């Protein structure tokens, strides 16, 4: 994705607007997608900024997600009243122009909530804001989301599919990690109570909330979104390492607010169940991490992330053991 490619793309999709791509610069960071900030001048003299999200070459990537699925989700949620997303504007569905499947969204003049947290705000207030944004996604009525988004047939089928991520990991490494196997057994012994299915973001953290003057916050990076158990997002956030954390200093306060906004009961979400969902809410990423390390072990190149994520593997194994040790023993229920 560069100036020439984006120019050719806009010439094709906006032939009457006379686009001139002024710049296209890669944005650093981001573990999974190639991201580019671009500025365009239209024939009427106006300018516009865009964010381009494309897939890195397979040999340079570890995390797997499908741009077409992400585009479908963006289309499904773009006009919902619950929360805002940067308007998705174009999609190069085949990579014919951009060199890879790529989503083009409007760029928002904003800064991330993570940056705001770094500035030393009132963290109690920030926690309430964070919970409110999280709940705004989880409270989205599923009937308002188009039928193009896959829906699991039942909660139990969905949760068993998430748990099966551990089987996928173990298969990738010939079943030779006792920590993952132990974690899987403890997960199966401790199935939580069912809750209604909801819109799950998959990477819900302050870095993916954009704050903009005079508007509600925007939620970005929907590549791992799906319909499922909303507690997956909560569990995922527990392992986000960037300080200041908005959950760990006062889990009860966080969950009291979350329950009040979502209607969940204390039986359905409490600190123990939030920890349980860390084990599930990160499992989709761990499958990709394990696959990346397995590929490198087999002699394939997966870019810098393939080897860098050795550290993440060890980190997650440590977390998984810590959290699964706390789970009680019982009859296997899944």
């Amino acid at each position, binding site marked *: 994705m560069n100036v020439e490619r984006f120019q050719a793309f806009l010439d094709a999709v906006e032939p009457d607007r006379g686009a001139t791509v002024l710049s296209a610069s*890669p*944005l*650093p*960071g981001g573990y999974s997608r190639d991201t580019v900030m671009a500025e365009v001048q239209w024939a009427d003299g106006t300018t516009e900024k865009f964010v381009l999200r494309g897939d890195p070459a397979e040999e340079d990537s570890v995390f797997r997600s499908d741009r077409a699925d992400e585009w479908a989700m963006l289309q499904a949620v773009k006009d919902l009243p619950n929360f805002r997303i940067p308007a998705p504007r174009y999609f190069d569905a085949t990579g014919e122009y951009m060199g890879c499947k790529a989503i083009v969204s409007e760029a928002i003049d904003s800064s991330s909530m993570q940056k705001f947290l770094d500035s030393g705000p009132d963290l109690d207030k920030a926690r309430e804001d964070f919970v409110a944004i999280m709940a705004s996604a989880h409270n989205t009525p599923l009937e308002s989301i188009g039928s193009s988004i896959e829906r699991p047939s039942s909660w139990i089928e969905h949760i068993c599919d998430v748990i099966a991520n551990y089987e996928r990991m173990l298969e990738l490494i*010939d*079943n*030779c*990690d*006792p*920590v993952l*196997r*132990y974690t899987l*057994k*403890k997960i199966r012994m401790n199935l939580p109570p069912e809750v209604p299915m909801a819109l799950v973001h998959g990477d819900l953290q302050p870095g993916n909330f954009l704050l903009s003057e005079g508007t509600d916050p925007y939620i970005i990076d929907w590549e791992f979104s799906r319909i499922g158990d909303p507690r997956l997002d909560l569990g995922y956030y527990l392992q986000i390492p960037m300080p200041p954390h908005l959950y760990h200093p006062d889990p009860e306060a966080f969950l009291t607010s979350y329950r009040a906004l979502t209607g969940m009961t204390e039986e359905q979400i409490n600190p123990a169940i939030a920890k349980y969902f860390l084990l599930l809410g990160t499992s989709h990423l761990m499958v990709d991490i394990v696959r990346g390390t397995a590929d490198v072990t087999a002699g394939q190149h997966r870019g*810098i992330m393939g*080897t*860098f994520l*050795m*550290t993440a*593997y*060890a*980190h997650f*194994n*440590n977390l998984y*053991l810590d959290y699964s*040790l706390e789970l009680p*023993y019982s009859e*296997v229920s899944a």
Partner: protein
Amino acid sequence: MITRPSTSRVLEDVVEELTRDIMPVITDPAQQIRLHMLMIVLNDCANASEREISVMRAEIPTYLAFADDVAKATGSAEVAAAVAGAQMGDSLVLTDVIRDYENASRAFSTAMDLVMDTVNRDFIERGEALLKTRVTNERAILSGSSAVGRSAS
């Protein structure tokens, strides 16, 4: 002579070169991040080169002893077979040690599965202690940010 410098010291020197002379002339933030990540990988490799064989060789007998004790206490033919197929050889060649470590890990998991299913508290406690040691060793080697070759020592 292959011991002077050692592999970890070679990697330490490479990281020093990258830090001192290469990183300052890279102006692209994305490439700076990539280089920093590569340096972390090199740190981990240096740590691993110092200790990975000794760590695996120390853990293997504990896994096999655990599984053997479980097999004898329960009479499980499955666990006994896993132990029989996972003995530690004399070779210190890394690929051989890795094979032995993975086989022993599988035997340990097979035994752990059994004692978890039957909620055998004594064996569970012993097995969980082995798991804690395993992740402690993993974290010491794959710390991601420690000084080259030194964090695990």
